[in-house]
């Protein structure tokens, strides 16, 4: 031991006169670091209440609860996370997983209150002192617990697609489907938005887990047209998918298709069950489209003898004649239809109610009738010269193509309209070798067609002229030519707050010559089959048959659905109408009240 060893310890005195390190709370406050994981802040307007925070919380510290005064928009569950600080461990997994990125943590970490119940609060809704804090933990831009990018659907190139009627979307491989299914957070926001309320998270989960049979069963609980809807559904579910808030929504439609495409139709009966024994009651369905066949399926499942009357020689309705095969191949539509028919649903083809079978007789001979005749009357352009033989209706063109008759459209075609029929007529014309111009009176964002149809029509080389109003149709130089005069339109705001209205600018008109003009500005229903004695009870308003609870009309045993009844006029709504009407018919025929109190 040296002298140094005795003296050295006294060196500590050197630091005795330094400024103390300790903070003198509460005189001095020390804010948490910029990333500090403090108390929760939620942007209540951004949040859609998907509950993913609740799902990931390992402490069950989050409950999704209703918030007073909050009026949820579509795609919003109306619930908001309530935090229990008796359980929270401030790991911020809820922040990391937040699909809307509305949730973050403030850098506040000290909170005194006398009431222990205060420690359970709805972030963002309850008035917490740190609600305006701008600092604190938030998810880094380069850090993700979810995959925002969709697995790309393999598609034909525009060059390939416009040269044939082959299906454009090739479908996911089983591996791709599982990868895409894996992105789903199973929040169920989509279920409320789907007209048929399909159990989307469940069938996506079944697909992810490789249980295709469970997936198929889940699909058929609400939709017997899953092969069809897996291809051409308007997929409103995807517009509210919470993954879409920070990325691309789950490809719900393609995943539905992935399930159906992987199950051979020969396995359907084994998986979904065989015919149900007859219950002795008979139901007539008018129209073998998605609405009628959906009603037929669910009624047959309940044991009803179902006869479907179809005016055309094939089933499918608008799916067959209005949707071209490059979007919905016949085989895939038939897969849905044939399974329904195989359960004992009888379809009488080439049988038009009214002319072939009187409506009254049908009502007389059946315990219930379901009307799903669809909209088949093309809307007139109501301009001079539209009777010209080279002016065709979009539906007629599509029907001809569906029947294998390739109409002579010529080299230059103008399509008038902005809906799906117009897009399909244009794309069909393209495939038949024509140069196509689409004339639409409003802007692109106003077009009722699916965005991808608009996109694909453009990719295939159709020329789109928006804000163009047809004015007059006149004779061309030769009988096989036709001239159209159209004027440019200005969009004028609606003083009542409705959507802007196109106003023709008469001084700016153009006259062009085409080989034919395809008018596709809408369709209307034909109700001439309903005899006058029923007209006073079956109300028709604005071109639609009015229905009440369970799709019931003013005549108790007559139900209605599909495009003739609803305003959304898409396949999935028709399918749901059919399902809903089947429930209503079953209630009525089993003696329960149909009308809801």
């Amino acid at each position: 031991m040296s002298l140094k060893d005795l003296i050295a310890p006294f060196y500590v005195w050197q630091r005795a006169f330094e400024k103390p390190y300790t903070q003198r709370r509460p005189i001095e406050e020390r804010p948490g670091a910029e990333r500090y994981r403090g108390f929760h802040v939620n942007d209540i307007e951004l949040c859609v209440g998907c509950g993913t925070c609740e799902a990931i919380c390992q402490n069950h510290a989050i409950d999704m609860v209703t918030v007073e005064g909050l009026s949820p928009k579509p795609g919003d569950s109306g619930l908001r996370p309530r935090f229990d600080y008796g359980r929270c461990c401030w790991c911020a997994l809820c922040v990391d997983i937040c699909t809307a990125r509305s949730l973050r943590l403030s850098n506040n970490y000290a909170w005194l209150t006398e009431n222990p119940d205060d420690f359970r609060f709805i972030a963002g809704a309850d008035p917490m002192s740190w609600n305006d804090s701008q600092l604190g933990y938030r998810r880094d831009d380069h850090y993700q617990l979810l995959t925002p990018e969709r697995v790309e659907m393999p598609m034909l190139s525009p060059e390939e697609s416009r040269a044939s009627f082959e299906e454009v979307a090739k479908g996911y491989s089983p591996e791709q489907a599982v990868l895409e299914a894996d992105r789903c957070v199973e929040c169920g926001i989509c279920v409320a938005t789907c007209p048929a309320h399909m159990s989307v998270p469940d069938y996506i989960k079944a697909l992810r887990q490789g249980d295709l049979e469970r997936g198929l069963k889940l699909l058929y609980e609400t939709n017997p047209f899953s092969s069809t809807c897996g291809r051409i559904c308007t997929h409103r579910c995807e517009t509210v998918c919470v993954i879409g808030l920070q990325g691309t929504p789950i490809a719900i439609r393609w995943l539905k298709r992935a399930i159906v495409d992987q199950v051979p139709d020969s396995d359907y009966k084994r998986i979904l069950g065989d015919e149900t024994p007859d219950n002795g009651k008979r139901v007539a369905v008018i129209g073998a489209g998605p609405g009628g066949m959906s009603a037929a399926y669910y009624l047959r499942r309940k044991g009803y003898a179902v006869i479907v009357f179809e005016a055309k020689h094939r089933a499918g309705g608008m799916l067959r004649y209005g949707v071209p095969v490059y979007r919905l191949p016949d085989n895939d539509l038939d897969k849905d239809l044939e399974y329904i028919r195989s359960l004992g649903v009888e379809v009488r083809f080439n049988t038009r109610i009214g002319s072939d079978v009187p409506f009254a007789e049908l009502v007389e001979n059946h315990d219930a009738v379901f009307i799903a005749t669809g909209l088949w009357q093309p809307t007139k352009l109501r301009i001079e010269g539209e009777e010209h033989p080279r002016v065709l209706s979009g539906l007629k063109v599509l029907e001809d193509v569906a029947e294998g008759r390739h109409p002579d459209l010529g080299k230059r075609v103008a399509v008038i309209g902005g809906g799906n029929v117009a897009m399909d007529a244009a794309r069909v014309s393209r495939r038949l070798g024509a140069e196509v111009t689409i004339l639409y009176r409003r802007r692109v964002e106003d077009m009722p067609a699916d965005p991808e149809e608009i996109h694909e029509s453009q990719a295939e080389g159709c020329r789109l002229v928006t804000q163009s109003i047809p004015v007059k149709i006149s004779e061309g130089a030769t009988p096989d030519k036709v001239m159209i005069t159209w004027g440019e339109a200005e969009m004028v705001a609606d003083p009542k707050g409705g959507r802007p209205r196109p106003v023709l600018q008469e001084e700016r008109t153009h006259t062009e010559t085409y080989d034919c003009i395809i008018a596709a500005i809408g369709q209307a229903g034909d109700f001439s089959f309903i005899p006058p004695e029923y007209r006073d009870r079956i109300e028709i308003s604005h071109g639609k048959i009015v229905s009440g609870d369970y799709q019931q009309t003013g005549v108790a045993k007559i139900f209605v659905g599909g495009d003739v009844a609803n305003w959304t006029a898409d396949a999935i709504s028709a399918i749901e109408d059919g399902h809903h009407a089947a429930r209503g018919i079953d209630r009525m025929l089993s003696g329960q009240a149909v009308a809801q109190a």
Partner: protein
Amino acid sequence: MHQQHSPIDLSSGKYVKLWQGPQHPGITGNMSLELAVCGDEVAECKTHVGYLHRGFEKLMERRTFIQNFTVVCRIAVPEPTFNEYLYAAAVEELAGIDVPERALWLRTFNLELMRLASYLMWLGGISASFGHGTLYQWTVTHRDYVLDLFEELTGARIYHMYIVPGGVRAGFPEGFADRARAVFDKVERILRDVETVLFSNAVFKTRSKGLGIITQDMVDRYGIVGPNARACGLKRDLRKDEPYLTYDQVDFEVVTGTASDAYERTWVRYQEMHQGLSILRQCLERMPMDGPFQARMPNVLHWEVPAGETYVKAECTRGEYGYYLVTDGSQYLRRIHVRGPSYTHAVALMEDLAVGTNLADVAGLMVSLHTYPPEIER
């Protein structure tokens, strides 16, 4: 190895039975030593654990793979980062996830920062155990400066929850590297003062030299690792022996000692602190400041890790720390076993080393082994 006094006959009046712990400043955590003393000399030491009642391993079998990353940091409170890293590394290995290079560097930086914080607290502990409360104030304060860095980088001071399976949660905040360097300089200055006051200190030298000598033949018998093994001359360090993360890209030498007593163990750790500062500075120089720090992950809400088992290990401040994971292809762990060095050092080795020591030195001896009872009871 000390000779056992046997048998201990309490009725002889020669012995007194004393309980040190489960709450005692000389025991870093909740465990107790059942001592039989003869005068002030320890005749027998029995170690007791079981006061913590935690069951993390079982708990983790009921948590998803992502949820568990928030649990593991609690297994060894003063060193959460090693747990975060090992859990993440094990899951990544089983799930076949490759972590981007920047995340590897950020992890190395974090582990070394953790080593520094942990050693600073330990250095205070060993000083206080031999009567130097002032040094404890110095080092714990400086540990707080390191915790400030953790707070800035990870959002928390103790339970960082920063290393997540797949990578890390964030990169450096703006200006962080400079602030980190300033803290390292500050720590270096206090270490110089500590060296003066502690290692040239008559009291510390007298009491710690020759205390708790671990001989080389004990090393394998007890499974002794880390500085406790290095202080008896064994060049054993996983960072060198089986380099992980980016340890093969930084320069450092394994520190060893010879005397293998409490003083030597303190000296080895003290030098490793300087070495740690050097590694930290190298990380700041060499790590990429841009690029991804997270691998592409499956959806963590229903993440199923393929069936398999693995044992991953890393050099924590106390030596080899290991995580053994078994998965069965489901969303949950089939089994997890955490193996920390404290298990042998605190439970078995202590019973041996304590015998023959002076009662007043038991706390110092215990701390010189650097053990954490929380990691014994996972």
